[in-house]
């Protein structure tokens, strides 16, 4: 079974943004730093004026791995995991499964866009290849 994140004051916006189709990243409203994992205080300027903003939901694959080993009995393999530099959020990476493609076709530098898979009260981000002309 797939463990889900415990929702906290810090991470709730991130894990539920998918309910509205949005990838939400925490930013500092004072110094504009993007903060991930999200925090209640800005690690750069210590401002408490932080909050989540929707980003475009696109990004670039910084690295990846294809997982072949089932880590629990019903885990479907293989699948790709991508570590993605998120557009509009400098320094922030979101690591997620890659869908809608052959896992072995994923490459560093690929442009991807976010989708979501809902399980209970969590909307897990998932990356899929940008289809030409569809990115906004």
């Amino acid at each position, binding site marked *: 079974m797939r463990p889900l994140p415990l929702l906290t004051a810090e991470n709730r916006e991130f894990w539920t943004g998918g309910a509205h189709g949005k990838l939400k990243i925490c930013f500092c409203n004072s110094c504009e730093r993007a903060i991930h994992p999200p925090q209640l205080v800005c690690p750069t300027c210590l401002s408490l004026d932080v909050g989540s903003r929707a980003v475009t939901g696109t990004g670039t694959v910084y690295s990846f791995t294809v997982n072949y080993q089932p880590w*629990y009995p019903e885990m479907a393999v293989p699948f790709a995991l991508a570590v993605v530099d998120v557009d509009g959020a400098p320094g922030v990476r979101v690591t997620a499964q890659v869908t809608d493609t052959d896992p072995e076709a994923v490459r560093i530098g690929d442009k991807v866009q976010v989708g979501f898979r809902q399980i209970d009260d969590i909307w897990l981000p998932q990356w899929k290849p940008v289809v030409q002309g569809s990115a906004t």
Partner: protein
Amino acid sequence: MTLAKATITGAGISRLGRKTGRPAMLHLVEAATEALACAGLTREDIDGITTYPGRTSGSPGMSPLGTGEVRNALGLRTRWHCSTPEGPSQMAPIISAAMAVMCGQARHVLCFRALTESSSQTPERRASIPGAGESRVDGWTSWLVPAHAMSGANWAGWIATRYFHEFGMTRDHLAMVALGQRQFALANPSAVMRKPLSLQEYRDARMISSPLGLFDCDLPIDGACAFIVSAADAAKDCARPPLRIEAMGAGLRSQETWDQRADLTTMGAHDSSADLWQRTDLRPEDVDVLALYDGFSIFVPLWLEALGFCGHGEAKDFIAEGNIGPSGRYPVNTGGGQLSGGRLHGFGLLHEACLQLWGDAAGRQVPEARTAVCGMGGGFIAGAMLLQRN
């Protein structure tokens, strides 16, 4: 005031195995008894105790014994005890024990690690899968496990993918790590894997998380390992030449995550290593034997670079030139490491380094080994140590 440096005066290891079915405490007693005998000490001499990470049921068999159980079982009366789940890597108990004896809080500290990951894991709750079998996770694993990045093999896998991409390393370079360590293991009676490993077998083995295959991953085992860390003045009366802890490094300059470090071809190892060399006049060329964390083979080249044995991106050539294997100038994990010896979370690597410095590594002894470096951990988890026999 300069504090006299701490020493390691004893080391012990239990019979290691897979699916031994032996209770953790029996492994621990074997290792602790051997460490005491090695140091020429008795139970009454031990006045401190440490472990990593302390008793936890979070991951099956990962740490079934805390300082409490071991104090009780061995009838210890201590002046100082501590377990360190959030310290600088699996090395944290050795580092904190060293600080304790330097500050006079204890004279002889028993540092231990006991695991029954092989016997305790099940298909539903596999060893070293954080949150396996749980419905919710929090902390740093919550940014990995829900995404199905459940294993360290995944996290090390994307480090390796990026490193391969930037520096042209291939799986055959990692094979040199795995094969070299297996060759060492053949001469180590306590190693779990003692059958020769060929390049073809390495290449043919099933992929776990690309580019890491089966033989790039260490093995869950049952066993225990123990050290005695002693104050410098107390060490003089011990049976073996004390191994001086010349320097310790615990720096960490990035977040506690496996994916946000700006350059994922470096790790916390680079921060801890930088700290280490700032605290000693010794240099990498003074080192005779290396104990580098090999939970996954890719960590070895990154530790080599972190510690400055070669430059960033140069590890593949450094390895290909034969530096780290048997008869190399900088032999790494001479007991077979965790890849072939079994996963004792760094303790087994340090144990082997101690044997080398005492001249007790029969069949694989590095001639006149006097100085060892040990680096433990992967990703953001890191601690480094220099040991020297006087």
